[in-house]
């Protein structure tokens, strides 16, 4: 039997890795993947609490988080494509102007 705290610690580690990647990475696509990693960590804690309280609505929330993440991925990658088209770079340090 695995206590719920182990799952929460795993979820915290994943979230922390996501935050670290968001801060240290310079490639805009990798930064975006770090955001997905954070979302996965949060999903794990949702499922863990759903198992602890025997409340299946937690798993329904995970479903909604996944839908929002899918929508976010589609729009975000489209934005990345248009950023690359106008700036010819994926390095976030070089994308520092609001106007063209």
């Amino acid at each position, binding site marked *: *039997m*695995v*206590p*719920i*705290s*182990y*799952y*929460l*610690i*795993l979820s*915290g*580690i*994943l979230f*922390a*890795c*996501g935050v*670290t*990647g968001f*801060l*240290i990475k*310079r*490639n805009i*696509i*990798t930064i*975006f*993947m*770090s955001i*997905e990693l954070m979302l*996965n960590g949060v*999903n*794990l804690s949702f*499922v863990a609490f*759903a*198992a*602890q309280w*025997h409340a*299946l*609505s937690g*798993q*329904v929330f995970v*479903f*909604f988080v*996944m*839908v*929002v*993440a*899918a*929508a*976010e*991925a*589609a*729009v975000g*990658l*489209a*934005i*990345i*494509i*248009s950023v690359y*088209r106008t700036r010819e770079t*994926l390095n976030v340090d070089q994308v520092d102007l609001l106007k063209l």
Partner: protein
Amino acid sequence: MLHLILFLAFGAVCVAGAVNLLAQRHPINSALSLVVVMGSLAVVYLLLGAEFVAAVQVIVYAGAIMVLFVFVIMLLNAGEEERTKGSKVALLFGVPGMLVGSILIGWVLLARGGGRSVPVGALPGTPKVIGWLLFHDFLLPFEVTSILVLIAIMGAVVLASHPDTEQGKKEG
């Protein structure tokens, strides 16, 4: 015991994938290690009894979203990223702060979170139960989500359409 072994094995794979995502410099390697993270997370969901969530994790996350990522990486021909120097202050305060924070959170969780756990093979989150919840208690959020996805699809098409083409001009 089996539960603990499975959890430790797939949790270790999960953490290794996440660390590898940070360590790799080429985006395609990062994307593949993210696929590993998501696949082993699906097994962890199964250990928690979330059958439906595990299946959706593999299909939507490891399947659809990561294919999208790999597609964009290939499309933009992304090369290795350049490293820039981090600030000293972040290193000086960030690392001890992170250590203190993680020890504190881990201690609190380990001290307080005993709780029940799910036996291996018990799957309370079957598609039948989740579907019932989704179409009774969460019907309005579900329908709102479908509108959100529709808007996201249209937004993605408008954003990614080439401005030089006829269609792109018409769309603005």
